[in-house]
């Protein structure tokens, strides 16, 4: 079950090299995103795109985010 985390935890995971995924449309990502994040819009999220972006290791920590809780 995905864990809902707060900003400080994101900072920790980011510092440890976790993959940070923005799932908003690409224009939103291009406008501004968390430094070091990669773009994987929700409507493009499939096994192939996820593996292409994240690699084959499915145990690695991954953080996903969008605009806000809405």
């Amino acid at each position, binding site marked *: *079950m*995905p*864990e*809902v*985390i*707060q*900003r400080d*935890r*994101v*900072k920790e*995971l980011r510092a440890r090299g*976790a993959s940070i*995924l*923005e*799932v*908003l449309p690409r224009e939103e*990502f*291009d*406008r*501004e*995103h*968390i*430094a*070091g*994040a990669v773009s*994987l819009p*929700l409507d493009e*999220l499939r*096994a192939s795109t*996820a593996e292409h972006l*994240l690699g084959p290791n*499915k*145990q*690695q*920590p*991954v*953080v*996903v*985010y*969008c*605009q*806000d*809780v809405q």
Partner: protein
Amino acid sequence: MSSRAAWRLESLGYSDVSDYAAGKVDWQANGLPTEGHAAREPRIGSLAVRDVPTCRLDQSIGQLQPQDDLCIVVNEQGVILGDLRGKALRADPATRVEDVMNPAPITYRPNVSLHEMAHYLVDNPARRVLVSDSEGHFLGVVHRDDVQRALTRGTDPAYTLGTGGSNPMGERFEEMKGKVKEGAGKMTGNEDMEAEGKAEHDMAKGKRETKGAANEMKGHVEEGLGKVTGDDEIRARGMADRIKGDSQRAG
């Protein structure tokens, strides 16, 4: 959306997925690093002065050492609970801070752009505003003069934020002055004064609107050019001019 994405990743076999539900808004609001073409827009966080006296609710006025007529009331966690300015700081020295503080100062996030802040300051006489993160922690104070300096650096020096009517350099001040003269003429039955005031007001207003329209047009052109050429700097400059023009026109 991030929740659905997190679940989808789990369904694809990823076993260590976290959902940062507060998202980009929370990250930006706390002044954390971002990338992308909008990330280069100047923000008020960069102008925030952090060395500002703070105090606690249970202190007395006589114990405080305010600077520049300001003291921020915070709790142990550094969360803003109020502020003290002007008359409150001159209360009887035995008065408790919580009895005279302003309990609801307006605060801004550090990711607010300078131009958004300029819009606010054009219509408000505030000399400075407080900056906090999304949990209310005090991050600093941004001074009107610093915003104005940052905005006019390398641009039109005639663009001033005014100070709610006390800055003779501002075109809005000239407008207001004309309006006051017109009102005074009307009240005293002095038709010449009334007409003169109206003319001064209309002239200053026209000047401001013309300048605003020119800046807005220039901004549109630059923004379009930036989009076409993919030059984010030109685009950002265009956007800044457009906002400035819009603000000038709107008065």
